[in-house]
């Protein structure tokens, strides 16, 4: 199993541009999450999904959108990028049936200038 994979690893955006961060897991996990980590801080929840077709907001959802059309994929969309969205973005998943342990991807480092 590859686990949780994220693309791209790095990206630089200009203010006002849009992009999609990709997240895929091959563990058949039903719960998936997007977190962001600002410099010197812990991670904060942006959006989460408890299964295909079901998504909900976390603590810091403004400026982002998500979709969950399949169990495997959970893309995060940034519309009209702003400097405040400069951060490292982590995707995670968990199985839920027998454990609460979350598995994290390697992260995407995004800079908005």
């Amino acid at each position, binding site marked *: 199993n590859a686990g949780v994979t994220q693309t791209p690893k790095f990206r630089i955006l200009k203010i006002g541009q849009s992009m999609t961060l990709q997240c895929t897991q091959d563990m058949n996990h039903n*719960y998936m999450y997007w977190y962001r980590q600002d410099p010197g801080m*812990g*991670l904060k929840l942006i959006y989460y999904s408890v299964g295909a077709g079901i998504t909900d907001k976390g603590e810091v959802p403004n400026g982002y959108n998500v979709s969950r059309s399949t169990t495997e994929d959970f893309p995060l969309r940034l519309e009209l990028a702003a400097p405040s969205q400069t951060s490292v973005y982590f995707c*995670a998943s968990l199985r839920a049936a027998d*454990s*609460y*342990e979350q598995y*994290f991807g390697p*992260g995407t480092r995004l800079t908005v200038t």
Partner: protein
Amino acid sequence: GIQVEQSPPDLILQEGANSTLRCNFSDSVNNLQWFHQNPWGQLINLFYIPSGTKQNGRLSATTVATERYSLLYISSSQTTDSGVYFCAVASRDTGRRALTFGSGTRLQVQP
């Protein structure tokens, strides 16, 4: 929401020393995980430990859920142990099972 406090915020050790990192949380949890974030930003899952004690090589962790704290022990520290250690918990009260992270303990191990 649930609060997570980690101490100490910063720690400098000589190679070979032992250390204890603490995580206090404000509510009942059904998940507690310890992570090591290395200098390249990679988040490494150390322990999934909502209760009890686990050991993995030089690292061990104990969670006392009834008293709402967890401890991470690092023995015979090495320079590769440097980085930030995060404690993260999922509150028992929410169905989303999302993790709330502490602010981390920044560890520097000097040769």
